[in-house]
């Protein structure tokens, strides 16, 4: 299929790739927090607390680029309500339609978890709310929220795969998987950065987070390799400038390979300090550059 056959959506990277990144990071962070909430020791809550403080504010940023990229931003509510009939509308064949609804569900869960932590940390207190506080099924929304979060991180890649643009089509069915793994990894980095910023020493928890992230980053490298094999000649653009810099040097080398090597090297060192900060920043920047390059390579 020649690229001439299929028109380019001209999605602006500074809106759409940034949205993919922010939503994926928020979702990844929330998932990690939910996992700790569900499976870890009740005394160790630094990571799940940090996850909730990261996920919700990040998610608040999400609608801005999404709506800004629309040709008619004022009509964004049509994503939920069919304007001509006035009833809710969901198109199961369209990842964008399902994604919009799941974003709502995810938003509610991250908000609840955020409030939950504010109450636990005694930042806010409502007398009436506090009375019923312990009856809140926080495990339920941790579960629903992490499933929704997974959907959010993955559907952005699926959305690209189910188009007819040659590169995006050729990388089917792996883009969703890659975005998911990358979202979990950038989510872990965002949590770690939050802990550094708040100077929370989460000890064992961070060690667990690090070993989880190592597995993620290895999978990410493998997924990228298979994805490029699948893409074949449609990925030729990635061998030209500026993709040599943003994809190979930025996303792969500095965003995944270097931090992974660093993680192995400092496995036995204690948490905290400037070198760690830099490697988390590299992971985040790499996640953003990965999405920018995969979005743009399908559009040029």
């Amino acid at each position, binding site marked *: *299929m020649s690229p*001439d*056959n*299929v*028109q*380019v*959506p*001209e*999605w602006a990277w500074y809106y759409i790739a940034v949205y993919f990144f922010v939503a994926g990071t928020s979702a990844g962070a929330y*998932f*990690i927090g939910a*996992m700790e909430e*569900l*499976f*870890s*020791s*009740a*005394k160790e*809550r630094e990571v799940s607390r940090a996850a909730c403080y990261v996920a919700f504010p990040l998610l608040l940023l999400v609608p801005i680029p999404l709506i800004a*990229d*629309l*040709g*008619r931003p004022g*009509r964004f509510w*049509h*994503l939920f309500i*069919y*304007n*001509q009939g006035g009833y809710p509308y969901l*198109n199961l*064949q*369209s990842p*964008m*339609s399902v994604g919009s609804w799941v974003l709502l569900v995810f938003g509610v869960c991250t908000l609840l978890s955020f409030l939950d932590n504010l*109450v*636990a940390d005694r930042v806010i207190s409502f007398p009436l709310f*506090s009375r019923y*506080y*312990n009856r809140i099924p926080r495990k339920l929304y941790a579960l629903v929220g992490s499933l929704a979060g*997974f959907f959010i991180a*993955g559907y952005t*890649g*699926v959305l690209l795969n*189910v*188009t*007819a*643009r040659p590169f995006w*089509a050729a990388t*089917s*069915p*792996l883009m*969703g*998987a890659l975005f*998911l793994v990358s979202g979990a990894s950038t989510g872990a980095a965002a949590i770690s950065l939050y802990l550094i910023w708040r100077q929370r020493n989460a000890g064992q928890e961070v060690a*667990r*987070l690090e070993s*989880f992230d190592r*597995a993620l980053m290895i*999978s990410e490298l493998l997924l990228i390799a298979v994805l490029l094999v699948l893409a074949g000649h449609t990925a030729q653009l990635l061998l030209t400038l500026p993709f040599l810099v943003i994809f190979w040097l930025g996303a792969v080398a500095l965003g995944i390979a270097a931090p992974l090597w660093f993680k192995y090297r400092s496995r036995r060192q204690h948490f905290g300090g400037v070198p760690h900060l830099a490697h988390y920043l590299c992971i985040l920047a790499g996640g953003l550059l990965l999405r920018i390059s995969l979005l743009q390579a*399908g559009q040029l």
Partner: protein
Amino acid sequence: MAKGMFIDTTICTGCKSCQVACKQWNGLAAEPAHFGKRSGVTYPVADNFTGDSYDNTGSLSATDWRHVRFIEQIDEQRREKRWLFSSDSCKHCSDAGCLNACPTKAIVRTDLGNVVVQQETCIGCKFCIPSCPYGVISFSEESGTVHKCTLCNDRIHNGLGTACAKACPTGSIRFGEVADLRRRADARLAQLKGKGEKAQIYGYEEADGLKVFYLFTDRPGVYGQPEHPIVPQRRLVLCSLVTILTALGIGVAALVNFRERLNGKEEHHES
């Protein structure tokens, strides 16, 4: 009683009547980028020479819902030549990628089987654009929405044929019931094959059947059509499954790393 069009490219003369009729009936503006101001010239100057034979618009766009493609085939010695024409538009697919992709129900199918964009519902998300395997649907900066051929929705719902078919002087574009058009296409195909010509119908199988289909005398790619178009949403199940499996994998990795609670005692965090 689905309506459609049969484009017999073998009798098209490339006169562009269909292009003009489409623009006129649908009130479509001239392609803005094709006219430019020149210093010292009071009127806009057309700089819309594509350099591609007599093609003046280049491709389908938000203001060009029909495009006549000029295909010049000249052999290396410049002795043999063939000039092909193909009048292209939306195919009104039975399984339409654009319609499947639309998150707002802005793209709908009418009772006559044609696919139309409801301008007042479209939000301009542009997801339908890469979802059409034929590169038909286009975004307009001016309206902030997408546009394409409607199969002259207003005309056909009032008992008229499409404007392009009406204007076509050679009968290369036929409007009618899809079943009738298929009979006509089969007969023409048999006639050409009887004369030993290499001919084929494009659009019987593709996307569950195109309501606007073509008779070609060369490969579809020569006419600018994808050889093996795939409705992209048919990849949805596989992509979703692989993503779900990956999610499960990450879940297991998380469980291995965060599993302490499985062995520890359940106690709630302090409120």
